[in-house]
């Protein structure tokens, strides 16, 4: 197990290095001169030159890269062009709302997805199966922005039960996390169902019945435990999907998170912020996948003991 963990950790190092190069290159690959971008449209050539020197853009490329990396490791991504605050501050206050929204959505989506998937798998070919899968297909097909608007119209505008947007109380969480998690829950349900149906045909499930294991344990212990192995991989992939989805959902529900910050920064061409956001989104994705790999090994002894 430790060997496996060590191998996975070592394996992420080149990924992180490659990521840092890409994010660094981002500013340099954009059309135009970064110093001019930072200095603004009206700057004189002297101003631009001054900015170039102050940002170190006149140094050789490799030196700039190492400075970028050493600054990033210390949490220094420069200052926002829009607000003139440090990027670290900007991101710092947006970080947790997004984390809470993503984690909360993921948790309910996984639990419901699993339950619907198992129910459909157990009752396959019957009405419970068809209903479950109909809900799942609808969940996948609903565009998040449209669903969000419909929910706001119904629960906030007409019924007045929930706030239209913002952040603070648990009521603020209901609609955004439902909108964000629905697609994931649907994918999880379908995936769990097919994994479950496949496992049901395995010889060891028959062995469990031959031992006289009651049917509910056959389902929830012998079958589900094995079906979880592929499902865990799916959770990791879906996290990536949620990170992307949060951009839309946060905009629709005015959620003060990283997704909306990204949208705002893009429209303002706030390059330091965009750069830092890309780095953070990517790192999150790498870390989540690392965690998933570890979980995968916990669920699957064949990997743990290799």
């Amino acid at each position, binding site marked *: 197990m430790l*060997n496996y963990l*060590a*191998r996975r950790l*070592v394996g992420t190092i080149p990924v992180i290095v490659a990521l840092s190069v890409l994010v660094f290159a981002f500013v340099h690959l954009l059309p135009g001169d970064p110093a001019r971008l930072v200095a603004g449209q009206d700057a004189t050539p002297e101003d631009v030159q001054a900015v170039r020197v102050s940002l170190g853009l006149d140094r050789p490329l490799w030196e700039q890269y190492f400075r970028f990396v050493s600054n990033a490791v210390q949490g220094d991504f420069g200052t926002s062009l829009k607000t003139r605050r440090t990027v670290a501050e900007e991101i710092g206050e947006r970080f947790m709302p997004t984390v809470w929204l993503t984690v909360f959505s993921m948790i309910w989506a996984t639990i419901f997805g699993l339950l619907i998937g198992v129910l459909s798998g157990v009752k396959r070919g019957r009405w419970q199966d068809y209903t479950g899968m109909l809900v799942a297909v609808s969940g996948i097909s609903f565009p998040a922005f449209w669903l969000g608007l419909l929910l706001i119209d119904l629960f906030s505008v007409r019924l007045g039960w929930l706030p239209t947007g913002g952040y603070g109380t648990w009521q603020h969480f209901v609609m955004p996390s439902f909108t964000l998690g629905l697609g994931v829950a649907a994918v999880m349900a379908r995936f769990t169902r097919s994994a479950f149906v496949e496992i049901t045909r*395995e*010889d*060891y499930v*028959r*062995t*469990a*019945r*031959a*031992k*006289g*294991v*009651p*049917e509910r344990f056959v389902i929830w212990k*012998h079958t589900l*435990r*094995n079906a979880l*192995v592929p499902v865990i991989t799916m959770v990791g992939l879906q996290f990536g999907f949620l990170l992307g989805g949060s951009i839309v959902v946060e905009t629709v529900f005015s959620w003060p998170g990283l997704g909306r910050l990204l949208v705002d920064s893009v429209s303002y061409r706030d390059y330091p912020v965009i750069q830092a956001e890309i780095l953070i989104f990517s790192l999150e994705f790498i870390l989540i996948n690392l965690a998933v790999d570890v979980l995968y090994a916990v*669920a*699957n*002894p*064949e990997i743990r*003991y290799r």
Partner: protein
Amino acid sequence: MTSIPQAAPTTGSLSNAGAPPATHSTPLVEVKNLTVEFPTEDGPFRAVDGIDLHIRRGETLAIVGESGSGKSVTALSLMRLIEFGGGRIVGGSIQLAGRDGGLRDLAQESLPAMNRLRGDEIAMIFQEPMTSLNPVFTIGDQIAEAVMLHQGLGRKEARSEALAMLNKVRIPEAARLLDRYPHQLSGGMRQRVMIAMALSCRPSLLIADEPTTALDVTIQAQILRLVRQLQDEMGMAVMFITHDMGVVAEVADRVLVMYRGKKVEEGVVDDVFARPQAPYTKALLAAVPKLGSLSGAPLPRRFPVLTVEGEAGIATEAERWQDTVEPAAPPILDVDDLFTRFEVRRGLFGRLTGRIHAVERVSFKVHPGETLALVGESGCGKSTAGRTIMQLQAPDSGSIRFSGRDIFAMPEAERRRMHQKIQYIFQDPYASLNPRVTVGFSIAEPLITHNLAKGAGVEERVAQLLVDVGLSPDHAKRYPHEFSGGQRQRICIARALACEPDLIIADEAVSALDVSIQAQIVNLLMDLQEKRRLAYLFISHDMAVVERVSHRVAVMYLGQIVEIGPRQAVFENPQHAYTRRLMAAVPIADPARRDRSRPLLEGEIPSPMRKLGDEPIWAPLVEVEPGHFVARHPVGDFA
């Protein structure tokens, strides 16, 4: 047809607490008119049709039949597991004399009641030990689960009971095994674990569905002996499902023969083997290779195939000796000092830690018209040797000469031409035909690739090849799924023949087939050898089939040939200890010759993996009689 069973063999004391006194007159299980159906698109399919059977305490009833005969369905019906596979018991009764003394009809029991019985009073072990254990739970937990369910023990007591059971099935270092996972165990060990699990509640009936079919022959012998010893210790009845008449002769007190869902014969094992009544039983027994049946004769011999036609009629195909070797001709295949090894890499940086010595300095010759059998158990390197000759696997060193020319020294174009002269037939006829193209296309493809026929000539050749392997020309337009396993193997043979080969490497080519089909395919291979002077490299684990087909035999163990020579010499005068143990492990399809105390190989099949620098010992083989060579140096456990 039913003969009166003799009294069951005396067994150890019945260990079932509170069991009624064992009276041999009342059967433990009595099945009457059992009928099982599966719904299909064309209406219900009757898999088991009115079966009657009974099993007494301490007795072993073997149910034999070929694939689709309904034997496994019968077994699963007794467990009432058939419902989970889509089947339905539509008629008949299954009376079980319970431990409490009462009679119950299992066909009518509710699911919760069956759950209480399953694993407690009746238990089952299955064919595939590799997939029958749950991969995510430890061995200890899986055995303990049954104990906790049925005996109401706590976790700790159940665990010590699991340990006791592992000791009972003679697993060495059982305590260490409790916390292991199934994938860390070999097939034989997993089957022992399955048995431990099944017997943990001391059932009065054990149903064993082909429990040794997936195992190597020496491991099979160990498992069969273990089941019998435990049966004697616990006094349980055993229902043994198998397709292997050798296993039947080895284990059974009584035999029930099934054919297409019906019982065709039932009787005491010696009677059924000595005086079979039903035509089907006669045909089945005729097709079964019996080790030692060719004693005293040097040549291979065709199977006497009987075909059941309708209810009574039998068509007979005569036996014939096979004399096809031209001893003076130069060898078609000459393998010299062949090494094939696989690297084993471990750890964080994939360091080379060892090698699998799959083929270790192997040398042999095959003459035109000759069949050389390469025999051995899993991991002995016989398939790797075949794949290396076929150039599907690169050797580490050594030379392979085909028709006198070194194939590694040939220019590329010539090697490709030579490729068509060596053909391969694989074990699994289901996996080796492309399901998306017609069989005609599969057979025509090598003709076109190698430029052997053009235009209308292709179709003609395909038609002729299909006739040659006993199929009809219009089969060319069909797809593989429309054919049975035996027919598919014929198609694979036709495809191999398309290239006009001089040598065919048959890797376990008949192992997956039913015995009657196996006999037909073996006869076909022999016919083709006679007509075309084909040479075969016949790779097999089945000593009885090898005895029938081969002129010479090479026995492989841990990558080395430990014994090679004329078939008669190797079989009648085996010189290497491993050869003798291998032959002793083969169950002989003749109850009169069963010897339950013969010495067996202990333990597991050793691994050909060795640490870096730990080279195996090798010395030239010693000639003990003309053409018969034996290893006299230590190989593995044989010093």
